[in-house]
């Protein structure tokens, strides 16, 4: 443990003294990051879970070609069709029948649905989180930098939005935007982004307040750097771990929200996202029908996804708060 600690400080600050004097991207950035990652177990497990999901999807896209029953399209399009179009099958599970995970109540290929659903659900999470963290960050900088009345207004809005149960508002938004037909995947992402910003805004604002008082920012200010220069050159790099951590947390939260909204039947019911698979499961009460092989795949994927995101964000926390590093 002691050993690891000293090598940590070496890796982060003085490691270059041990190397020949040559600046090189791999040595400057990649090696220390790699060395650090080796000790950040949470991050490794989380990234590993993601890599596994990515490999699963990628390999399936390449090699799993389920020609839809109409025989119209093969390859990637065929996969998407197989995931959403009925294959004139009864719900059944027989791995040797050409459907490795069986078929659901509407005769769709469950394997294809999972493969297509993972990127779709991730896409919702990433779009919503990117918008949320982006907006949150701008608000945080404005609030912490301008201060005064504007800070008070932003803080009040953020603080009073946080106790409102988000899912309920999202349900209202989702129903009012497009009642009946359901939303598309991207629309759902935007709906979820509506409530994805208060959390990041709050976290980043408090960090900006801390960093603003640091010596190097003071130094930059005294040497006449403009406000924007300070924000982008001095503060952003030091905020990056926090921003990344809140981005990962926001992604997880957004996927959670999307699954929630979709499970109420308000999402894109035609697209085989993981959430709409869950919805159809609840809708047809598949548990009582004994269709466990339909319910289990999306649940397992979701568990891997959420646990992976959780571990990555915990790992990033460790990067952001070096105090946490000592006790693993």
């Amino acid at each position, binding site marked *: 443990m002691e050993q690891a600690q000293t090598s940590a400080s070496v890796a982060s600050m003085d490691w270059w003294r041990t190397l020949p004097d040559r600046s090189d991207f791999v040595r400057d950035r990649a090696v220390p990051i790699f060395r650090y990652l080796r000790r950040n177990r949470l991050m490794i497990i989380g990234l590993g879970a993601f890599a596994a999901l990515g490999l699963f999807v990628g390999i399936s896209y390449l090699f799993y070609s389920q020609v839809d029953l109409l025989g119209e399209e093969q390859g990637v399009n065929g996969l998407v069709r197989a995931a959403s179009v009925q294959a004139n099958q009864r719900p059944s599970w027989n791995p040797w029948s050409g459907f490795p995970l069986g078929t659901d109540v509407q005769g769709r290929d469950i394997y294809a649905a999972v493969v297509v659903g993972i990127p779709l659900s991730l896409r919702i999470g990433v779009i919503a989180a990117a918008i949320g963290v982006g907006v949150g960050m701008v608000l945080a900088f404005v609030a912490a930098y301008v201060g005064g009345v504007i800070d008070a207004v932003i803080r*009040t*809005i953020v*603080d*009073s*939005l*946080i*106790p*409102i*149960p*988000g*899912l*309920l*508002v999202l*349900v*209202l*938004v989702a*129903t*009012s*935007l497009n*009642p009946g037909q359901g939303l598309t995947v991207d629309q759902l992402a935007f709906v979820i982004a509506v409530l994805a910003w208060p959390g990041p805004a709050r976290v980043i604002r408090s960090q900006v307040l801390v960093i603003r008082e640091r010596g190097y920012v003071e130094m930059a200010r005294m040497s006449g750097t403009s406000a924007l220069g300070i924000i982008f050159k001095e503060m952003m790099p030091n905020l990056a771990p926090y921003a990344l951590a809140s981005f990962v947390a926001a992604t*997880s939260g957004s996927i*959670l929200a999307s*699954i*929630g909204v979709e*499970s*109420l*039947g*308000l999402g894109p019911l035609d697209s085989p996202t993981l959430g709409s698979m*869950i919805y159809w*499961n*609840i809708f047809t*009460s598949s*548990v*009582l029908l*004994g269709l*466990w092989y339909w*319910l*289990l795949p999306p*649940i397992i994927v*979701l*568990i891997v996804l*959420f*646990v992976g*995101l*959780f571990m990555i964000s915990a790992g990033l926390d460790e990067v952001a708060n070096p105090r946490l590093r000592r*006790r693993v």
Partner: protein
Amino acid sequence: MFVVTIWMASTIVFFLPRLSGQNPLAEKIYQEAQQGGYQDPDVAERVRVFEEKYGFDKPLWQQYVKFVVDVVQFDLGRSIFQWPKSVNEILAEKIMWTLVMGLLTLVLAFLIGSAMGALLEWRRNNWGLMVAMAPILAISAVPFFIFGLVLQLIVFNIDREFPLVYGFKQGVVGWPDWSDWEFIASVLKHAILPALSITLVSLGGWAMGMRGMMVTTKGEDYMVQAEAKGLPDRVMLTKYAIRNSLLPQVTGLTLALGLIVSGVVLVEIVFGYPGVGGQLLQAVRSNDYPTTQGIVFVLAFGTAAATLALDLMYPLLDPRIKSDGT
């Protein structure tokens, strides 16, 4: 802050459903008018009368002012689809289920989770605890209702007789009857799965938070002093370490409330529990503004009120904070 939250909630709740540009009242009346196969010549007139009754004929800002004034007095209007029931009546039937389920699981998870977290850090090398914690931590990232589905799957395959859905046994004449012991037993039995799915999932978060705080607390000077005084281990744990670590947990509680309410609503839907969750789903599907508004508003109000209550309790828990500030 509380007032702003309530105002925001009521504003959101008022405007969002109206963005859809649908007229559920007219839809409902036209639908009913067609049901008998007999064309009522006065349908348009009937729609007009009802719109007047609901105030839908007035300009939007007047509706808004009236809505806010009404809501402040807890008058949530009448349901459109369950006319002539008022939203308050609908809520009165359902809210207790949600409230009891939510509070019970919240308190259970908070207490057990905090205790586990505290012990985890206090007895650092206790293998039993660590083994018990591993699965709890793993599922803590999973949404309540997804875990609920997993529980349903498992229980269904072990015991087909065990109740998976509904709040009590369906199809018994005279139920719900709270003076009947059999009914209460049935309610308790049906509550086990939803309660478990909420409690087990939330345990991990509280345990981790508590453990993190215990680490900091253990390093404080007063802990060294307590040890030097020769205080028994138990006193040090309960009166010194836990007492001081619990404060940030309470702050965490105020932040988590909104998420927990959302989670409970979903769990209710998965388990067909007779709380407001199912009612909300039904209201949303049928475009029943007043009911949707009422449910969302009451839940938001409850969460905000609980947050306020916790904020007010804070000085009691932490004597250093005097409530002279905000």
